[in-house]
């Protein structure tokens, strides 16, 4: 097993494209090293991307937000402007694993690990984030909901790397949130995860809304949230949103939850998550956890 730690994205793409076998990108390693240790993977080449400056950077300015794919959960949490702009995204990333895992785990890795239960992915989808992908044929942006196409399957071609995420500026009167259901309080994998982002006008009427669900299908889903638009996100609108969430689920039965349970919980979480996003859009602060 070879190890390379290139300092540019171009060099990383070249290494990835030139390797005949299945090379793997190493960001935080909290999934990759476990998969190697348990013999799920045996890559001939590991490409550590943490020496590539733009992949380790967070910027929040007039043009929007950039989160490098190799930024850790702990670094996200410490970045006050990003937390103010997209609290739901930061909280979702911070739900992954322990303090120790947060010291290493990244959103690029969370997405590219290809788990349908990845916590940060529904929050990114709800926020309207785009993944910046660099490869041998250049750069492209892909909405985050289109990156994962199935369990452990990504819409990336050989040599392509997700280098980071582009998020819009927080719209005026906008709010986002992410909640997940787990049967304990910490250190678990989502039975259902739900991200909601919404925008109100000056009168408090919802003008835009996005919702995403995790762990209820073979990949995180972008779910129709139009039930909120044109409403003040009142109880009737939240009922409709909850119904839309439950209808969108196509979950499996597994040790974490039955299909029936996941369908029901998706509705409950949709309502609760939208309520937090609404409170934030109204300027109420506070965290969900």
């Amino acid at each position, binding site marked *: 097993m070879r*190890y390379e730690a290139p300092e540019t994205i171009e060099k990383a793409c070249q290494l990835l494209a030139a390797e005949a076998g299945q090379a793997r990108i190493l960001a935080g390693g909290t999934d990759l090293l476990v998969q190697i240790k348990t013999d799920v993977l045996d890559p001939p080449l*590991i490409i550590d991307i943490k020496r590539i400056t733009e992949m380790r950077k967070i910027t929040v300015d007039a043009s929007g937000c950039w989160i490098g794919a190799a930024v850790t959960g702990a670094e996200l949490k410490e970045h006050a402007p990003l937390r103010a702009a997209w609290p739901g995204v930061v909280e979702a990333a911070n739900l992954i694993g*322990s303090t120790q*895992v947060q010291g290493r785990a990244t959103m690029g890795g969370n997405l590219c690990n290809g788990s349908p239960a990845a916590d940060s992915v529904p929050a990114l989808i709800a926020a309207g984030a785009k993944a910046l992908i660099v490869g041998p044929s250049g750069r492209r942006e892909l909405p985050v909901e289109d990156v994962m196409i199935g369990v452990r399957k990504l819409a990336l071609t050989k040599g392509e790397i997700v280098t980071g995420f582009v998020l819009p500026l927080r719209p005026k009167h906008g709010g986002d949130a992410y909640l997940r259901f787990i049967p304990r309080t910490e250190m678990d994998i989502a039975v259902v995860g739900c991200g909601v982002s919404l925008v109100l006008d000056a009168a408090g009427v919802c003008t835009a809304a996005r919702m995403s669900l995790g762990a209820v299908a073979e990949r995180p889903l972008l779910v129709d949230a139009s039930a909120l638009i044109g409403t003040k996100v009142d109880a009737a609108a939240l009922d409709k949103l909850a119904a839309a969430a439950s209808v969108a689920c196509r979950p499996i039965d597994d040790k974490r939850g039955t299909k029936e349970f996941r369908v029901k919980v998706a509705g409950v979480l949709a309502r609760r998550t939208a309520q937090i996003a609404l409170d934030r859009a109204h300027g109420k602060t506070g965290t969900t956890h």
Partner: protein
Amino acid sequence: MAKHHVQTTVNGDPIEFLCDTSETLLDVLRNQLNMTGTKEGCSTGDCGACSVTVDGRLVCACLMLGVEANGKKVGTIEGLARGDTLHPLQQKFLEHAALQCGVCTPGFLVAAKSLLETNPDPTETEVRYYLAGNLCRCTGYDKIVRAVMDAAKDMRGSKAA
């Protein structure tokens, strides 16, 4: 493939070692540097027994390659005591009997030290959440949490003095 030549510092001392790609930082610490204070529990980042700091950040040594330590500052349990003088956390763990078999203890101590460096006055809830990635099958956690709270109090007091 040739081994990687890694230059790092461990508890402030410059250290060089050679390792294969597949060797974790935990493997290197225990098997090459003979620093066996850092324990191997699950090897999959779930138990926290191998907690160390890297450039001040708390991580699991089992979830990091040895080669990734190149140019970094590693902190381990061996860096807590000053000669024969125990770190206040170590002293409080003894006073509160916050350990039985002891395998999780180095990880708890390193993690608790990291907590108190960023948050010298944590609530009990904050302590419990921060240490959620450290598993102990003996104590039931209460004594550990009490020891950390007590050490925090002492350390705040000695700083004020």
